[in-house]
């Protein structure tokens, strides 16, 4: 049989598509083996996230959403399939290399903030740059600049224990941004916050997204998910639905989604 398109054309076409995707996952499988039991968590996922998108991943507990996030964040390995991050195939790699990749491409935001308790706000924000080998002066300056942007400049020398949840999450966001990543992975970023603060945090994330950084949020809150451009729903390790939200023109439209 002869192909309709000449081979080369197809290759070029694929390349064009590739360069638009920041995260591309093909037939991703992941099992956890504990003793004689094998738990098949991810059963062949296909996900394509374009550069600059803001996507939420939803699913009940056990749906595999955390596992997926760990794999996307190169915190965990996968068994089968392919995962391209910024067009680079992420395979089993040394911890050192994985750490370098995380440092370069990914910023993490966690539900419990995961700030280092004995470091002040500025030091926490600056830490990723320490591992990048940036001088203290430069990284602190950059950290202060970011804190300023997030309205926390006056709090730079406070320890995390002296700050509110919303402030802590904003510091965590600043920390995830400081190494200028391509992707922000947020694992239940509003899980520990009240509704008002949640929205504030999400607004910040949207702002971050508007600068061109891809944002992926794992959440189980519909109203949060509805504020993103696309929702990927996982159930029992497969994608249940993957649909684009109606573009949200202004804040007033939240009301529609807030009420279930």
């Amino acid at each position, binding site marked *: 049989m002869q192909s309709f398109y000449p081979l080369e054309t197809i290759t070029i076409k694929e390349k064009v598509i590739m360069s638009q995707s920041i995260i591309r996952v093909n037939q991703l499988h992941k099992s956890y083996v504990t003793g004689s039991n094998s738990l098949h968590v991810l059963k062949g996922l296909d996900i394509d996230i374009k550069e600059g998108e803001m996507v939420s991943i939803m699913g009940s507990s056990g749906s595999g959403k*955390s596992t997926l996030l*760990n794999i996307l*964040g190169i*915190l*965990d390995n996968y068994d089968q399939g392919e995962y391209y991050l910024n067009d680079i195939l992420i395979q089993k790699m040394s*911890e*050192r290399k994985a*750490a*370098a990749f*995380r*440092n*370069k491409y990914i910023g*993490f935001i*966690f*539900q*419990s903030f*995961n*700030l*280092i*308790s*004995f*470091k002040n706000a500025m*030091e926490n924000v600056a*830490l*990723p740059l*320490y*591992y*990048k080998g940036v*001088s*203290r002066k430069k990284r602190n300056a950059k950290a202060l600049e970011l804190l300023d942007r997030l309205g926390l400049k006056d709090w730079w020398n406070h320890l995390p224990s002296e700050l509110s949840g919303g402030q802590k999450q904003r510091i965590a966001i600043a*920390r995830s941004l400081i*190494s200028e990543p391509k992707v922000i992975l947020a694992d239940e970023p509003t899980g520990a916050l009240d509704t008002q603060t949640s929205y504030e945090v999400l607004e910040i994330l949207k702002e971050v997204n508007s600068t061109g950084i891809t944002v992926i949020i794992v959440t189980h809150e519909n109203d949060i998910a509805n504020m993103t451009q696309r929702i990927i729903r996982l159930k029992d390790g497969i994608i249940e639905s993957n649909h684009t939200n109606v573009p949200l023109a202004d804040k007033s439209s939240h009301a529609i989604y807030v009420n279930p």
Partner: protein
Amino acid sequence: MIDYIQEIFSTLRQNKLRAIMTGFSVAWGIFMLIILLGSGKGLENGMEFNFRNTSKNALWIWSRRTQVAHDGLKAGRRINFTVADGDILKRKFEDDMDNFSGRFHLWGDYAVTYKNEYGDFRIEGIMPEFKKIQLVDMLQGRYINEFDIKQFRKSIIISEPVQKHLFKDEEEKPIGKYIRVNGVPFMVVGTFLDPEDKDKKQLYMPLTTTQRIFNGNNRLTEMAISTNATTVAENKRIEDEVRDLLIERHRVAPDDKQAIGIWNTLENFKQAQGVFAGIRMFVWVIGIMTIIAGIVGVSNIMIILVKERTKEIGIRKAIGASPFSIIRLVLSESVLITALAGLMGLIAGMGLLAGVSAILQQVAVENQDVQRAFFNPSADFNVALSALVILVTAGLIAGYIPARKAAAIRPIEALHDE
């Protein structure tokens, strides 16, 4: 670099008390090691002090009665050395010998008098070479010399205690004065001090004079040799050959240990040194065992620390810390704790030794026995250097297992245990 140190200190500050407690065990270990080593050195110095006034490779030869019959001669025969023995030894062992001196002891009552003062002292006729075998510090005048020997001069040198005993008037200069030994006047030509025993009341006069005046004829009561041997084996060989020669000359049974005695200082010195080398090794073993206890303590604490900091390490790894940087973090902390604590132990130990040493030195001025038993305990630079190497190694060993544990922490597990 500054960054890296600040990073370590910021975490150490978190657990000040724990760091101090952990460090204490290491400091104590090093402290003990230094004290033990210093004490060992002190004992050794005391021993060496005892050998100080004799040439270290000397042979002291004396004679007694034979124990067994030999060569047709019955047992219990008194062996007497003569000047001829000395001459033969000098000739035969020309290549092995540095100095030779015949000795003639005066036994019994030979009262020494000066004006109205008198006393009984040890009196010995010697040759000028004797001063290189039995070392003394000359205070005034000169030692016995060749002319004294050749011309049978009635010269005498006296130790400081003898001088004090006879010359009550401290202003009076003993040199050139005549003292009487058993009624015979001798001119004092020198005063000396025996560094081994500052209270020793001793007089030396020319060997030839002594033999002539005190019915010695050509007899020698004893002989002393300093050899040019540098090893125990060599000195032992010379000792054996000297013994063989004397045994043959005096027709003594070869297995008669009593008749001719030789004290080999080098052999004894080396034996004593061997004992102290053993003590030193023993001390090192104990010291290192103590330090191992400290290391285990540090290691233990570091493991707990790593466990407590699992989450923090997970965060660091998630935001881009490589396993090596985590290993470095834990190892540096461990090395820093051990090195700082150890250094304090080192300084404390050295300080204590220096203090004790200073006190001992003051005591020694009045009481020589102290100096002989235990003198100048100190840990030298090499010991401190070895201790330092041990410390850093200890820190690395102590930190290794915890560091490996820390590096193996998986960020997902660390971050998801809520």
